[in-house]
């Protein structure tokens, strides 16, 4: 993974000093609330229900064991011994104290981490495929490009006060695991006919109040033009994006109002005036960064480890875990392992300091000291030998990280919601827990097969509910918490936004609603047909009919919700 050089270290250290001074001036009354807010947000600091929340950047989801140990230390020292991984591959601490934040940032800087631009109206932490470098469907490793974009976006002087936040995702595989289509810029690494590396550029996607998939404005952008072209997009947005209405300030609204063709024309026009500049990044700089992402020292192994195969035959629990949480690796004899943060009864994405320490140790022991954060709020050990899987499984089982439900209904993606988030309309974690409880039976879950369920506590859609096969959105009705359900959303190359099935439900109705949706699917599915494919084939109506057929225990108070 990328390691800081002298410039990176210096910049992050100077940022810590800068924020320390700003915090001191704020506490001394020299900076007003309004003046301090954007400064603290661009250092990852929110004010939440219980006090400040600190969001730490995990650039494109890559972490070293050393960094995770530091996060565990911070969780114990400055928080209540827990952290929460988000749908943008970051980590949040929910119980920090404002005055201690500069000290936390200084601790992070020791391990080449920070909280820069994890919030605020700027270019946010970039996201990428959590299987980058190891996926068997990858066109080329995206990480050198994402790292260069990260540096370009960090402290970018022209784009620190945009109309609104700005999210960039980079996909480099046949099967998009980054949901690039719902980002302000989604980049799809590709090769031209002559083999040159470049990107398809998608702009103006987003969730929230106005969910929309991005439009491709350039089919092939040579990689050497990446930064200049992004600069052109950001400049058009910075100059012309709306600043009069926070709900209309994202780039998607600009793209929509201009039309994607006109937006593309303006970007191209801006770009023609930039493109005569120097090659960017320079080949030498690219080479310097790319050298950090060479393959680890893999051993030459057989494609199938006999001992591993035998274990799978003998131990049903192990086989089940392998079936769901282990996937193939591009290098023979290795595997990619998902460590589940979805144990029944837990808050999705939550992890204790002790679990962090365990995972760090296991990464050292089994996976070259590195790990990944998946936007589905799980952790990944990307380079485990097949022959080590059984030993690893026993360890992660003890640590409560072996729930064999990756990609199944119980692998719920869920924002912190009303338990923590000041913006929430409704709680989301208890809904996730109640659904997990209803679907505890592993055989049943496996029979239902792969499907996704995403929960957001408000329209900001941090739980990505629009792209869940089932999406749940917390809404506020006259001060009460209600839940709107959509189906048909999906990620990947054929990303789609879900359709709302009808009036909202009360919290205690939700497990039954999910059960009925699943029931309708099981009744109508063709052999081996996934939930999403059944929805696409038969439409929303049969699901709707099933869910609303008989009243639940509640009289539905808000029939037109």
């Amino acid at each position, binding site marked *: 993974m990328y390691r800081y050089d002298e*410039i990176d270290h210096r910049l992050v250290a100077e940022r810590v000093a800068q924020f320390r001074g700003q915090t001191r001036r704020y506490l001394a009354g020299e900076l007003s609330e309004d003046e301090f807010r954007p400064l603290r947000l661009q250092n990852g600091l929110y004010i939440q229900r219980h006090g400040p929340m600190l969001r730490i950047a995990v650039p494109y989801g890559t972490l070293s064991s050393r960094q995770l140990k530091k996060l565990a230390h911070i969780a114990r020292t400055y928080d209540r011994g827990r952290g929460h991984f988000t749908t943008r591959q970051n980590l949040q601490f929910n119980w920090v104290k404002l005055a201690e934040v500069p000290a936390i940032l200084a601790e992070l800087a020791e391990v080449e981490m920070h909280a820069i631009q994890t919030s605020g109206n700027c270019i946010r932490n970039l996201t990428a495929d959590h299987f980058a470098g190891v996926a068997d469907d990858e066109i080329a490793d995206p990480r050198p490009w994402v790292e260069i974009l990260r*540096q*370009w976006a960090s402290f970018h002087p*022209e784009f620190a*006060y945009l109309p609104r936040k700005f999210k960039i995702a980079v996909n480099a595989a046949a099967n998009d695991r980054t949901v690039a289509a719902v980002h302000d810029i989604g980049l799809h690494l590709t090769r031209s006919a002559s083999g040159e590396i470049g990107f398809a550029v998608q702009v103006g996607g987003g969730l929230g109040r106005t969910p929309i998939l991005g439009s491709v404005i350039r089919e092939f952008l040579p990689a050497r033009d990446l930064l200049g072209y992004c600069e052109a997009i950001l400049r058009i947005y910075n*100059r012309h994006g709306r600043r009069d209405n926070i709900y209309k300030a994202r780039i998607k609204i600009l793209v929509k109002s201009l039309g994607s063709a006109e937006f593309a024309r303006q970007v191209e026009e801006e770009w023609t005036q*930039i493109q005569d500049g120097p090659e960017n990044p*320079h080949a030498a700089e690219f080479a310097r960064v790319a050298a950090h992402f060479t393959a680890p020292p893999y051993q030459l192994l057989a494609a199938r480890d006999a001992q591993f195969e035998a274990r799978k035959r003998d131990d049903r629990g192990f086989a089940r875990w392998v079936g769901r949480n282990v996937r193939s690796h591009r290098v023979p004899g290795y595997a990619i392992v998902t460590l589940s943060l979805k144990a029944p009864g837990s808050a999705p994405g939550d992890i204790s300091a002790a679990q962090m320490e365990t995972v760090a140790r296991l990464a050292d022991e089994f996976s070259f000291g590195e790990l990944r954060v998946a936007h589905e709020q799980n952790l990944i050990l990307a380079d485990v030998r097949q022959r080590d899987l059984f030993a690893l499984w026993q360890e992660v089982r003890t640590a409560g990280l072996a729930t064999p439900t990756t990609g199944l209904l119980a692998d719920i993606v869920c924002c912190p919601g009303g338990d923590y988030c000041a913006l929430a309309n409704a709680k989301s974690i208890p809904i996730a827990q109640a659904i997990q409880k209803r679907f505890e039976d592993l055989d049943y879950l496996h029979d239902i097969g792969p499907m996704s369920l995403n929960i957001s506590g408000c329209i900001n859609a941090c739980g990505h509910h629009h792209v869940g096969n089932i999406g749940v959105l917390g809404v506020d009705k006259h001060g009460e918490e209600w839940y709107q359900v959509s189906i048909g959303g999906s990620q990947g190359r054929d990303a789609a936004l879900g359709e709302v099935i009808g009036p909202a439900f009360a919290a205690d109705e939700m497990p039954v609603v999910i059960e009925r949706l699943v029931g309708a699917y099981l009744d109508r599915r063709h052999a081996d047909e996934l939930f999403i494919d059944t929805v696409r084939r038969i439409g929303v109506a049969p699901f709707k009919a099933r869910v609303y057929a008989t009243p639940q225990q509640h009289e539905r108070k808000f029939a037109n919700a």
Partner: protein
Amino acid sequence: MLNAVRSSKGAGIIKSGAVIDDAWRLVTVAQGETPETVALPIGPLLVPVPVWRSRRAELIRREYEHGWPLGVWLSAEEGPEAIAADLDDFSVIAVEFSKFTDGRGYSTARLLRTRYGYGGELRAIGDVLRDQLFYLARVGFDAFAVRADRNIDAAMAGLADFSAAYQRAAGPAAGPTRLAA
């Protein structure tokens, strides 16, 4: 906001790393006035674009007769295109930040420096605060009319928040950089 700009009239500014007296007066068109009729005090003036457009000959004559150099200020809504054809006329271009969170002026400055080749004084006016000075300098501002209610000497420290950058600067800024944009 106009108050903030007005009250900076005659106060010091940061220029070339020092606080200096400011000889420039800022002309604003108040309600009830028009660009055509607003009074032009003696001395070097920063005039709004509509005044420049409607009274260009008069302003140039003042420069010729009295030696008062010309200056213009762009509102947050006005991009560099508004004055791009006239850049050679100006000794100072000021860019207004109606709120420090409105980042349009950063693009304006960057374009004036890199696309239009403006080499004169580029001044940030309005809601100009210590914590934005470093980025303002990186996009090409070299003069800062810090908000009048703030300690301008203390604010100057903001220019030294960082000693390096990833991106190339659009103006004369120090320190190593890594990327070409």
